């Protein structure tokens, strides 16, 4: 810090913590990630990744693609951008075909 100098012992610990947290956590817009989650503007719960509300989460199986293709919703699905691009190929209509998708083993 240039304008603030820690003086007592607690302030020194706080300053160390601030310096440490700088290195570990960076805002998304500061990073160089070109693709994926950062390209999607997520305005909130009430709309899906396309900005629509129709059929949101109805049926629940449709949610799969908001997690997988667009990373709109953080969930435990395989990474479809680089490692498992064909993971959901056997699941054309989630309501019917969800049983066809399988676990992945990194």
């Amino acid at each position, binding site marked *: *810090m240039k*304008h*603030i100098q*820690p*003086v*007592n012992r*607690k302030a020194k610990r706080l300053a160390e913590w601030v310096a440490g947290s700088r290195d570990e956590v960076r805002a998304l817009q500061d990073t160089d990630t070109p693709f994926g989650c950062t390209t999607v503007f997520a305005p909130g719960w009430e709309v899906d990744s396309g900005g629509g509300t129709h059929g949101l989460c109805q049926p629940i199986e449709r949610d799969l693609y908001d997690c997988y293709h667009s990373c709109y919703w953080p969930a435990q699905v395989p990474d479809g951008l680089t490692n498992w691009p064909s993971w959901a190929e056997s699941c054309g209509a989630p309501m019917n075909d969800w049983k066809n998708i399988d676990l992945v083993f990194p």
Partner: protein
Amino acid sequence: MKLRTRSHRRMPTRDGAFVYLPDSASIVRLDAEAVTVLDRFECREGLEAAEYLAETGRGRDAAAEVLEELCDVGAIRPVEEVRPPSSSLPPMPFPLATLVLNVSSRCNLSCTYCYEYGEDKLPGQGEGKRPASMSPETALRSIDFLFESARGRRDVSVTFFGGETLLNREAIEAAVDHAEGLARATEKRVHFALTTNATLLDDDIIAFLIDHRFGVNISIDGDRASHDRHRSFKSGRGSYDTVVPKIRRLLAAARGRTRPIGARVTLTRPLPNLRDLYAHLTHDIGFDEVGFAPVTSAPNRDHALLGDDYDDLLAQYSALADDYVAAALEGHRHGFSNLGDLLRELHEGVNKAHPCGAGLGLVGVATDGELGLCHRFVESEAHPIGDIENGIDEDRRREFLEKGHVNRKIECATCFARPVCAGGCYHEAEVRYGDASHPNLHYCDWIRAWTDLGLRAYARITDANPSFFQRFERTSS
């Protein structure tokens, strides 16, 4: 996003300010630019960060940098940021660090202001329901209890209290011997402290206190006139002429061989001149430290301090603080221990969830082995929390500590003195409000003024002699 300053306290310097941040108990030094930014965000409704960056004349990036630093240390935060109040306790059962043994509930003096036997005793105190003296067996069992309850702690402390402690040397000597044996066996360090009115000091007991490195606190109220006003024998004769030669003998024998010996002065109305009193106790008698404590009393007692007295007290503390700062700037130690204790806490950045360690790391033991929150509560019916045979009643302990947590004291939420005060003494609150967890609202203004005095002293010393506080780090680690 709208931002505004959090509660803080400033101590201006020539080129900026020291700032105390009670959320974290940090003390930081701001340059003039940071002070300007802090000023701009000092508004109740907050200011949009973007609006500020647009209006500033010093360049957007430079301004954003200052603002970000102020946000990082918590001096400026979003208006809507709320910190949910939590009264969470550390993992329980919390290991004990200090046991205060009330070895005697008898006293050979009849001080008129005594909270234990005087008009302000708590129900149950001084009613003769318990033995007047702690038996050596109870003292030994108490020491066992401390070592068991301290678990992994490396350091434990035993403090002897009364009544007059030296009326029961048998229990003290038994406890010290046993504690030192247990300390050797368990590879712990044990420390002893004792408070006495000094009437019974003789060469034997002086040698004993020095050999076992006791921290000794002596109750003495100043020169003959101030002291004898309240501290008299049952006959009414003042005790000054009896105690002072004995104290001188102790101080001469202890010099350089034990911990600093402190005078503890109870302040009553009308207030004496504290600077003269301090000079008498340190220069004329030879004490290392002097601590002052306003009498604990219901407001209608003749000796109780009233509003004007507290203003006077603050002015007198301020004069002593000036002396302390002057000594510190020359690298010397000053014995005004109220300020020394406060500065130590400010330097460490202590942020208290509870006003003191009572019921947490410290408990008091009555003469019969019953446990109370601290020495001031033992032998009263208020907040018994177990006994040495069966240990601490953990449910009662937890219930009390949750209720006494500073975040449960609504009045304390916005106070900058919260980290060092946390609502003030439980016993004082019990006497005043009949509720130990009640914040001591009758002295809020005074505590704030006193904390402010401490902060200004801290800033003045750090500004001119920054290495002074390193001595606190050596002794506290």
